[in-house]
């Protein structure tokens, strides 16, 4: 065997070995090398896209009319049963004030953080279109097309970062309970909203998320919010995620760059409106 045919033999052997040795994992049906379900791929929240307007009402008639997007118009909040966030009185007053002024901006406190291209925070990240889940060893990683957001969720049992570190997307630690990914989110800053009308939290917010993989294409999402500075009791929301790119399509689909701040035309306009700065 000369060196070139030995090279070909090596290449063929290598290809054969790779094919035979690569674990066959069917999306959502198999297990990754680590053991948990394979949840990789592209997902989106279904049916409640307009939750981004007001999570207590899911949508208002104007937004439904303008967008034409179907919604169940139900509150995302399933507990308490009245669908309202259990704000302390001062906090309900602040939220009502923002809701009344969110289309008539007279101070920065009324401006939606999204309008200024700040990161979404949780759970708002989940009703902003397509997101991609990766499962490299030891992690679950969530990439969002909207404002190129991301979440890195270690699932290796490491402790949270120090309490004085505040993060726009919080500090996530996950573990698996059967088909459910349980994520504890701490270290949130106090600058993100849950929706356009100013539903808010403080930096004492702690979120416990449960992602239950019901079948190949479906995730039931539940998150409980605890923030003793702002709410009188914890509350829970639910969302449903579906795979929105499947099979062959997934081989050519990718998230593209949405550079929000770089194209921001709103903040200069608002600067003019709020401070008299030249447009």
């Amino acid at each position: 065997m000369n060196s070139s045919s030995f090279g070909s033999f090596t290449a063929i052997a290598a290809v054969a070995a790779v094919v035979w040795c690569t674990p066959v994992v069917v999306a959502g049906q198999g297990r990754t090398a680590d053991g948990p379900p394979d949840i990789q791929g592209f997902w989106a929240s279904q049916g409640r896209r307009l939750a981004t307007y007001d999570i207590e009402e899911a949508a208002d008639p104007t937004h439904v009319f303008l967008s034409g997007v179907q919604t169940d118009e139900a509150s995302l909040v399933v507990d308490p049963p009245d669908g309202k966030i259990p704000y302390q009185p001062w906090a309900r007053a602040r939220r009502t004030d923002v809701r009344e002024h969110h289309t008539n901006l007279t101070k920065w406190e009324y401006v939606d953080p999204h309008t200024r291209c700040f990161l979404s925070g949780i759970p708002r990240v989940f009703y902003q279109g397509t997101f991609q889940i990766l499962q490299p060893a030891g992690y679950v990683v969530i990439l969002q097309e909207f404002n190129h957001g991301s979440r890195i969720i270690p699932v290796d049992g490491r402790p949270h970062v120090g309490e004085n570190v505040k993060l726009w997307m919080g500090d996530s630690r996950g573990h698996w309970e059967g088909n459910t990914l349980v994520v504890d989110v701490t270290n949130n800053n106090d600058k993100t909203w849950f929706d356009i009308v100013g539903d808010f939290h403080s930096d004492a917010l702690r979120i416990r998320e449960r992602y239950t993989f019901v079948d190949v294409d479906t995730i039931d999402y539940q998150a409980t919010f605890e923030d003793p500075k702002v709410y009188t009791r914890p509350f829970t929301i639910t969302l449903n995620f579906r795979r929105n790119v499947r099979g062959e399509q997934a081989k050519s689909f990718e998230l593209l760059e949405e550079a929000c701040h770089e194209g921001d035309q709103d903040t200069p306009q608002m600067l003019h409106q709020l401070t008299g700065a030249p447009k």
Partner: protein
Amino acid sequence: MRRRFICAFAVAVVASLAPGPISAQVRAGDPAAYKPPRAADGQPDLQGVWQVLNTASWDIQDHSARLGTPAGQGVVEGNDVPYQGWAAAKKKENFENRLTADPVAKCYLPGVPRITYMPYPFQIFQTNGLLSIIYEYDHAVRTIYMDRPHLPGHIDFWLGVSRGHWDGDTLVVDAVDFNDQTWFDASGNFHSDALHVVERYTRTGPDHIAYEVTIEDPKVFTRPWKMDMTLYRRQEKNVQLLDYECNALEEEAAGRLK
């Protein structure tokens, strides 16, 4: 179990037959002697939290210290950036206006390869058919698909579109579809939307990656040119990416974010 054992053995045999990386491309360690550990797909494992230890983000060429800028030895091969005549004048103008004209001073995404050598950590993730790099600076993300061609036509992106393949144990990333808005450093080195970047990531030891970049842009340069530097694995226990949200910090400093 038996299959796993045989596969581990087969990978070892195949790896021992594979040609090693070219030594001239590598700075740290003895590349011929170093066999990187493998990711789940059998390719070299580049995962972890990495960061440069150089001053390229301020100036990719040799430079003395300036106020707020540490002195540094350049990362450009031969130290010369081969500008066309008009472009050399433009670079000089950029340098004079750098404090306000640098796109990073406006909190814009730094482009490629500058995002790699910003003085902030980044984390590489590898999974089936792709690598994803998340950068602490401005929560930038690049996903490098290994299984598909470039997108048709030109599209302007701040970080371009990246496609990868393995050349032996080296990850080669081909990136196009850039806009003409980013600089290579805070000293005004620039490019056009014809920019084509080829990056080579080669592990040279447990904690080092040799990072070599070829820059091509026929609208601005007279020939392709190269940078090279080392990426260091962050050693701190439990190191993780935090936030540097540039535009939010700017708004906060201006009193517009309480």
